């Protein structure tokens, strides 16, 4: 069973400089009870992808083509109220910035109460459930923490509270947009372990976004590699990390600082720049930076299946 199936999704923003195609033909799946990681540099369209799934694209953005299938429902065709009913109930989100993600003038308990407004529980039942969730994410003294305000908690605690809120309605899919980027290394590890634990307990799927390859390798079952609004490669974590097939994935893994065997002064970086998404090249999106470019790269490459579920958008994928 797959919880989420995205097929050939395209998203365009209208900007002053013309249409900006932020996502081109994005396809991947999130199977039940699995953690799928999305990696990619800043600006590659990770947040745009999430917003498209949630139906929260900015006013100047639109989905022009493709499908987002969630638990058998086509989200691109869903009405706004129906979509709202899914958010927070079946699909929940944890955002990057724990400092700004909670409302500063409402107590944590009140915010947790509001999230359950559709549950039909009495106020006392909602509050009991909130306290249980706070305990589950290891907030000390949850009965009292419940009445406090976000600014009274540390960054790590706030992120755990955000996770508690997201999991409160036992969603089928948890989307985590760089949930640990703003935390320091020890907190990052603790938060990842907590997420893993809770995912097991609740039995939900997770879409985990990060540009930290180490975290992805540790946490995720599957990986989706994005570059400039396209999925250039996807497969199991083992496949992508051990035998990457797209030249971009290969370079990305080479560049990961954690992989450098010895301390070098100059980290390897990929030469060249991401193309302007308003003037997207006709052919392969990575061609201008690729050291294996051939004439055929001027055509849009197909998604090449290279073995058990591993797919790369490169004509040379099988040869690499």
């Amino acid at each position, binding site marked *: 069973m797959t919880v989420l199936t995205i097929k050939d999704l395209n998203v365009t923003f209208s900007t002053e400089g013309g249409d900006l195609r932020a996502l081109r033909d994005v396809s991947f799946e999130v199977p039940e009870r699995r953690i799928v990681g999305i990696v990619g540099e800043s600006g590659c369209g990770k947040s745009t992808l999430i917003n498209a799934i*949630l139906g*929260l694209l900015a006013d100047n953005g639109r989905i022009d083509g493709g499908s987002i299938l969630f638990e058998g429902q086509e989200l691109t065709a869903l009405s706004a109220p129906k979509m*709202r*009913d*899914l*958010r*927070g*109930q079946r699909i*929940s*989100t944890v*955002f990057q*910035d724990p400092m*700004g*993600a*909670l*409302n*500063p*003038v*409402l*107590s944590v308990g009140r915010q947790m109460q*509001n*999230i359950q*407004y*559709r549950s039909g529980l009495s106020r006392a039942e909602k509050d009991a459930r909130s306290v249980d969730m706070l305990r589950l994410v290891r907030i000390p003294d949850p009965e009292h923490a419940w009445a406090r*305000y976000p*600014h*009274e908690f540390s960054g790590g605690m706030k992120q755990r509270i*955000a996770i508690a*809120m997201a999991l409160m309605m036992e969603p089928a899919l948890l989307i985590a947009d760089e949930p640990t980027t703003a935390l320091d290394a020890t907190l990052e590890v603790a938060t990842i372990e907590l997420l893993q634990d809770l995912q097991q307990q609740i039995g939900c799927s997770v879409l985990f976004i990060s540009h930290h390859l180490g975290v992805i390798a540790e946490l995720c079952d599957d990986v989706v590699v994005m570059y400039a609004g396209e999925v250039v490669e996807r497969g199991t974590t083992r496949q992508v990390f051990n035998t990457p097939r797209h030249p971009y994935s290969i370079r990305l893994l080479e560049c990961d600082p954690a992989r450098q065997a010895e301390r070098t002064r100059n980290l390897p970086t990929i030469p060249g720049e991401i193309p302007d998404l308003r003037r997207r090249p006709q052919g392969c999106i990575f061609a201008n930076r690729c050291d294996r470019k051939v004439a055929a790269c001027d055509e849009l490459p197909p998604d090449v299946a290279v073995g058990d579920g591993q797919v790369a958008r490169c004509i040379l994928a099988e040869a690499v």
Partner: protein
Amino acid sequence: MLMYSVKRLGLAVIIVSLAMLMLFSMIYLIPGDPAAVALGPRATEAMREALRIKMGLDQPVWVQFWNFFTNAWTGDLGNEVLSDRPVAEVVMEQLPYTLALIAGGISWSVALGIPLGCWAAVKRGSMPDRIVGILSVAVIAVPSFVVAIYALLIFAVTLRWLPAIGAGEPGDLGDQLVHLILPSLAVGLGWVGYIARMVRASMLEVLEAQHIRTARAFGLPENMITYRYALTIAILPTVTLLGVGIGQMLSSAVFAEIVFARPGVGKLVYDAILTRNYPLVTGAVLVTTVLFVLLNLIADLIVGALDPRVRSRF
């Protein structure tokens, strides 16, 4: 919250003391002999000398200030010239009328300004937003005495819907409220514009905040997001602005009281200046200053009550 209130109150006491010092220096530096002014041109030198001693003007300046300062803090603002009644008593008689006028002005500006600003922000870029924008600038630009005169001409004189002058029958609350409508509109109308603009701007800012995005991602109803999650934050700068704006409202109150022939501190000061009743002017100005500081203090306490971050900073 207690610590916050205590500190804020201490600050208020310091501000009032400084205001007293400034007021005293002003009276002291104004050229001319207060005793001569009080007694008029036909008084003899002996009479003036006697009054100077009675008023303490023969003392060194710092003693004079100390006397003024301690008397003022105990509520003794001296006696007024014409009837020799205590200034504090005369001012306190008029104060309720002015307080009612200010409260009315604030009610108008809050009751109209906050919903209009909120509405404009939610419908940003639409026709209603533009109309609210233009109207806001228009009412800000019109001076309050012009509003007072036109309101009087239109609603009282031409349409005869509302009474033109006075503060209403003493003891008859309904009548007093009816008499309050036009003058308080004159005081508050400009503030409707200020507040609408302010609320719109801070609403737009808050609606962009990450926590609003989170609230949407939790599928909360749009009404709850607008009023409970965004507006409660967006009105905070408005409350502070109103606290400071009380000063401006007090000066509009002077015009409103004159145009509508209402009793009040503004009218009192106006009459006192015309009759050169200086102790009354000083006393009324001092009471107004204390009123301003107090209302400002209340505004800050309201912000503290609404915003847990402010509370914990103290």
